[in-house]
């Protein structure tokens, strides 16, 4: 299996996860949510990940991170640009008006949204691949997205090349876009690709 085939397979897996995540977010927010572009698998060096993300969302951003253990061990990140933070706060039901992510109820809602969204994404991948995972409590960070990525991945991925799955959701009633990024750890990547007899 070539690297191109491996990426295509991971992209296929991501599409399954993105579809269920979009449905879950729509149910949580009670508004339509769609997938902005086909989910894809990206292979690049760790140094390139931040600039890749910042190219689409410059400046500070917000990242919600769910660590997963088991066969699918890795990190799931839900990221928004700084401009989208207030928009996402507006669409979450029952939050105080004009409250930002520092507000305890907004923070709690964002973390719960991360938990639900990332769990939907991962559970669908787990069912599709018959691999298991266990979710840890979610965490939140506000900083430059590349700094967040480096910080989140520093303890886990020391290899030169990282593979990650990139999906983008759109909330149709607001000009809002959010990314779901799944960074499988090396053993999880191997578990996923071994299903198709491939490697990176």
């Amino acid at each position, binding site marked *: 299996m070539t690297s191109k085939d491996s990426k295509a397979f991971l992209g296929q897996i991501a599409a399954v996860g993105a579809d269920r995540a979009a449905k*879950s977010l729509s*149910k949580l927010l009670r508004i339509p949510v769609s997938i902005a572009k086909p989910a894809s698998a990206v292979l690049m060096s760790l140094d390139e990940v931040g600039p890749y993300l910042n190219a689409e969302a410059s400046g500070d951003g917000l990242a919600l991170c769910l660590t997963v253990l088991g066969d699918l061990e890795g990190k799931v990140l839900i990221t928004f640009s700084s401009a989208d933070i207030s928009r996402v706060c507006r669409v979450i039901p*029952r939050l105080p008006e004009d409250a930002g992510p520092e507000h305890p109820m907004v923070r709690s*809602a964002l*973390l*719960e949204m991360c*938990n639900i969204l990332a*769990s939907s994404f991962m559970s669908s991948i*787990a069912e599709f691949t018959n691999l298991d995972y266990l*979710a840890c409590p979610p965490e939140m960070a506000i900083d430059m997205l590349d700094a967040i990525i480096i910080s989140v991945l520093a303890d886990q991925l020391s290899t030169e090349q990282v593979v990650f799955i990139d999906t983008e959701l759109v909330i149709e009633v607001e000009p809002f876009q959010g990314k779901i990024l799944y960074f499988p750890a090396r053993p999880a990547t191997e578990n996923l690709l071994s299903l198709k007899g491939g490697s990176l």
Partner: protein
Amino acid sequence: MKKVLIVDDAAYMRMMLKEILSDHGYEIAGEAENGIEAVEKYQELQPDIVTMDITMPEMDGIEAVKKILAINAHAKIVMCSAMGQQNLVMKSLEAGARDFVVKPFEPERIVQTLESLFA
């Protein structure tokens, strides 16, 4: 009016559940943000039903189910969990929880689940 104890580490989910259940005629007896608090509040408030998150700090929902059932073997506990925690849900049911709902839930779904326990 049935009394409910809401247990979830997320303040937002507790707020949403309080609103849904109050709107459907339940009295919110209290709330707890981890398993230890849940057991203490159960003893203190003697609710008719408990909604219980699974993944929580200090003491998780499964352990709290066991401790509450040790206090009252007939306690009615419904688990609320995010998708993909089927193994943990199964453990909760084995521990004695009566039913479960998956987040995000429709308000009607949680109400139906609770009402079915009093049918």
